[in-house]
C-alpha cells in the first residue's frame, strides 16, 4: 500500500491518497533496510513512473489519511496486544527465576528487587490487556487509552532486557556456548525499536494527553495551511 501526495494545495492530512501497488511493476525499486538487530523487516521502496490502475486506489481521492490511521491503529494494537511475540512469552516468572538460579544470582537483593518491580508491571500489564479484551467482547470500543498498553509493553520489554543482561553479565556480550544465555542479546537489540514502532513514545504521550486528558494542542502545529507552504526537512523555509 502506498500513500501518495495527490494535492499539494490541500492541508497536509487532506491531500493524500492510498493505492495498492504491484511490487513487481516496472519502476518499483526495493532496497532492504538493515536494522540494528541485523534483521531486515523494512524496505525503502522507490517508485519511479509506476502506473497504477484506478481500481487499485483504496478509498476516495485525498482520503488516504483515514486508511493510514486504520493501519496504524492496528499496528499499535499488535505491539501492545495480549501476545507480545515469542520474546515476551519467554519473560515468565519461572524463566526469569531459572535464569537467576543458573547464574547464581537468585540471592542478590538488588536483582530480586528489580525482578519484583518488573514482574509486578508485567503482571499488571497482563491484567490491563485481559480487561480490555473482555470489554471488547462485551461490545465496548477500545479508546485511545489502549495506547497505554503499547507504552507499557515497550517499557517493560526494555527493562526486562536490561534486567536479563545484568543477570547474565558478560555471557550476553560473548557466546560461551551455554544454552539460553547469549541468545538474549537479540531481545536487548530489539527493544529500542519497540519504543518507536507504531508511533514513537513521545507521539503516543501527546495523543494520550490530548485525546484522553484533553490537554490543549501545542501552538504552531499547522494542520490547516496547504501542504506546499509547510516548512519541511531539507527544504528552506521561505
Amino acid at each position, binding site marked *: 500500500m502506498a500513500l501518495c501526495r495527490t494535492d499539494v494545495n490541500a492541508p497536509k492530512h487532506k491531500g493524500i491518497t492510498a493505492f495498492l501497488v504491484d511490487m513487481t511493476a516496472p519502476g518499483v525499486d526495493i532496497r532492504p533496510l538493515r536494522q540494528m538487530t541485523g534483521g531486515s523487516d523494512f524496505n525503502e521502496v522507490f517508485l519511479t513512473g509506476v502506473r497504477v490502475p484506478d481500481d487499485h486506489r483504496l478509498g476516495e481521492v485525498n482520503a488516504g489519511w483515514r486508511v493510514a490511521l486504520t493501519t496504524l491503529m492496528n499496528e499499535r494494537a499488535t505491539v501492545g496486544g495480549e501476545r507480545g511475540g515469542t520474546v515476551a512469552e519467554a519473560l515468565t516468572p519461572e524463566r526469569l527465576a531459572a535464569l537467576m538460579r543458573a547464574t547464581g544470582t537468585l540471592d542478590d537483593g538488588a536483582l530480586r528487587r528489580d525482578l519484583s518491580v518488573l514482574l509486578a508491571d508485567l503482571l499488571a500489564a497482563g491484567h490491563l490487556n485481559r480487561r480490555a479484551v473482555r470489554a471488547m467482547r462485551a461490545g465496548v470500543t477500545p479508546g485511545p487509552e489502549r495506547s497505554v498498553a503499547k507504552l507499557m509493553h515497550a517499557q517493560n520489554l526494555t527493562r526486562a532486557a536490561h534486567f536479563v543482561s545484568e543477570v547474565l553479565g558478560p555471557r550476553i556480550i560473548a557466546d560461551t556456548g551455554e544454552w539460553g544465555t547469549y541468545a538474549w542479546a537479540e531481545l536487548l537489540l530489539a527493544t529500542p525499536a519497540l519504543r518507536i514502532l507504531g508511533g514513537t513514545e513521545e507521539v503516543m504521550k501527546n495523543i494520550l494527553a490530548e485525546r484522553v486528558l*484533553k490537554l490543549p494542542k501545542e501552538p504552531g502545529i499547522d494542520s490547516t495551511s496547504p501542504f506546499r507552504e509547510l516548512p519541511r526537512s531539507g527544504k528552506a523555509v521561505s
Partner: protein
Amino acid sequence: MNDGKEELDDLREAVREFLAAKSPETAVRAALENGHDPAVWDQMARQLQLPGLALPGDYGGDGFGLTELEVVLEEMGAALLCSPFFGTVVLAAQALLASADEAACKRYLPGIAAGETIATLAVAESSGSWDPARIATRAERTADGWALTGKKSFVIDGSIAGLVLVVAQAPAGPALFATRGGAPGLRAEPMATLDPTRPLAALTFDQVPGELIGAGGEGGQLLSQVLDVACVALAAEQAGGARRCLEMSAEYARTRFQFGRAIGTFQAIKHKCADMLARVELAEAAAREAARLADEAAAEFPVAAVTAHICSSQAYMFAAAESIQVHGGIGFTWEHPAHLYFRRAKASELLFGGPAVYHERLLARLGI
C-alpha cells in the same frame, strides 16, 4: 457471566455523588482537626448501606463481593474520605470472616454492617511488621477467658474503635482476640501521623480481658488472608487517589497560563500527565482484576493481590508527587490539597511494610 458493569457504574455514581457532597476538601480539612464526622458515617450506613455491602447476608450484609467494595474504595480514596470505613469494614470485618468463627461473626458483623460498630484490627507493633513471628503481645489463659498484654502500634482508628481485634501470641501460636475499646487495662494514644487523614493509635494492653476468635493457633494463616484482601482494598483507594491527582493536574494544565499559553500545551507537562495516566490505568486494572479474582476464589488471587498492592502504591506515589510538580508553586502550599494526597500516598505505600516487604512477598507467592 454477566459482569454487571452497569450496576457497578451506578454504584460508583451514587458513591461519588455522596462523597462530593459529604467529603469535599473543606470536610477533609475539618476532619484533620476534629476527627471523622459521625453524621457522615451514619448516613453512609443508612442511606447507602456501604458498611454491609460486601458482608454476607447471614450477618446483616448485602452479600456483594470485593468487586463492588473495590469501586466504593476507589471513590473514597479519590475524595480522601476521613472515615473508619477501612479499619472497620476491611480490616476488622475481614479478620472476623477469615476466622470462620460463626458465633463471633454473628455477634459482631451485624453491628458493623449496620454502621453501629466502629472496629479495628491491631497487628503491628513497634516494628510495623505484619509478620506473625514478630508479634510479641501475649495472650494468657485466665479463669474465665484470656488476658492480653503488650503494645500495638499503627492501629487504624485505634482511639475511637469500640471493637478492637488483636493478634497475640497464645500458647498454641498467634491467634485472634476480641476486646472492646476502653476495656480495663487498655490504653489508646493517638500517634502523630504523616497522613492526618488516617488516624493511627498506639494501644497498650495490660492484662486486658480478651475473647478468643476462631479455634486459635491459625493466626498466621488468618493474617496472610486478611492482608491479601486489605492490600486489594488499599490498592483500590490508592488507584482512586492517583486518578484524582491526575485529574487535578490535567485540569490545572488546561487552565493555568504561563508564557502566554496554557501550560498543558508544553510537552514537558503533557508527558508528565501521560506518564501519570499510564501508571493510573495500570493500577486500576491491577486492583479491579485482583478484586474480581478474589470473588471467583481463583488460584491466581494471592499473586494478583500483591501485584495490585505494588502497582497501586507506585502509581499513587508517582501521581501525588508529579501532581505537585505540575501545579508548581501553589502545589507545595498548605492551602492546596496536593500535599494531603502526597501524605496519603506515602502513608498507604508503607502501611503494611512497603517496598521492603511487598517485593519479597510477590516473589514468595511466585515461588521465587
